[in-house]
């Protein structure tokens, strides 16, 4: 009698385990199928996982081409000088890319500068930059071998002491490329021109 009762107890315990497992498993299956149906309405067997397409990769600018003013020059990377102003390229026939900002093609304001003239007074790389007009094309090739074409959107001149730094260098949702060079009167005492020309352009491709 005692043996029969012990066997009954064991069977009862095993039965409890089975019932508990079965009930919770069915509940889990039901929840999973509900989640799938919420994610996609076409097929209950398809689960949609949200993904974000990565942004295109833009390299370091290496050459600058502006057919309108016959510019085809290397691009140097520049930072800031001792006065915290944007630095200039070492070679007067090169353009300088501000490498503390975004790369050309990225969202934001990429900036290139170039000398207007040389110490002899001879033309430098951006001698004719003020001749650019809205719609003119600017092409930058990066170190990945990609060409990025920009179209001029605006041309402006500013006094050196009233230069709109935020507009030229600051953040924007657009993909801007802004060119800077000198303009105005040469001051022999300060060794500086009175004005700056800025050519604003936007990614066209």
């Amino acid at each position, binding site marked *: 009698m005692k043996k029969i*009762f012990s066997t*009954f*107890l064991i069977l*009862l*315990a095993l039965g*409890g*385990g089975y*019932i*508990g*497992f079965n*009930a*919770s*498993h069915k509940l*889990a299956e039901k929840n*999973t199928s509900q989640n799938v149906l919420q994610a996609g309405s076409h097929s209950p067997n398809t689960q949609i996982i*949200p*993904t*974000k397409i*990565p*942004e295109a990769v833009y390299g370091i600018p290496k050459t600058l081409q502006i057919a309108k003013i016959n510019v085809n020059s290397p691009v140097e990377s520049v930072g*800031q000088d001792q*006065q*915290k*102003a*944007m*630095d*200039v390229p070492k070679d*007067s026939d090169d353009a300088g890319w*501000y490498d*503390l900002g*975004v790369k050309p093609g*990225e969202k*934001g*304001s990429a900036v290139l*500068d*170039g*000398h*207007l*003239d*040389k*110490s002899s007074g001879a033309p*430098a790389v*951006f001698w004719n930059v003020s001749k650019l007009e809205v719609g003119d094309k600017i092409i930058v090739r990066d170190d990945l071998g990609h060409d990025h074409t920009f179209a001029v959107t605006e041309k402006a001149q*500013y006094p*050196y002491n009233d*230069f709109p*730094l*935020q507009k*030229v*260098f*600051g*953040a924007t949702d657009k993909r801007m490329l802004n060119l*800077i*060079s*000198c303009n105005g009167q*040469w001051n022999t005492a300060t*060794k*500086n*021109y009175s004005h*700056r020309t800025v050519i604003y352009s936007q990614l066209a491709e």
Partner: protein
Amino acid sequence: MIKKAALATGVFAMSALAAASMTFAQTTTTTPATTTVTPSPTTSVPAAAPKTGRAN
């Protein structure tokens, strides 16, 4: 006899609970997120415009 019946009911309940909680733990495993966030590039705005005149 009553004692043994109570013990049997307790064992039954515990077994059911253990099995249920094991299954629940298995089914609440979450799938890792696949969304990639691209950091926005930042710009350090200089203090002044470049001196692009009369290069040496």
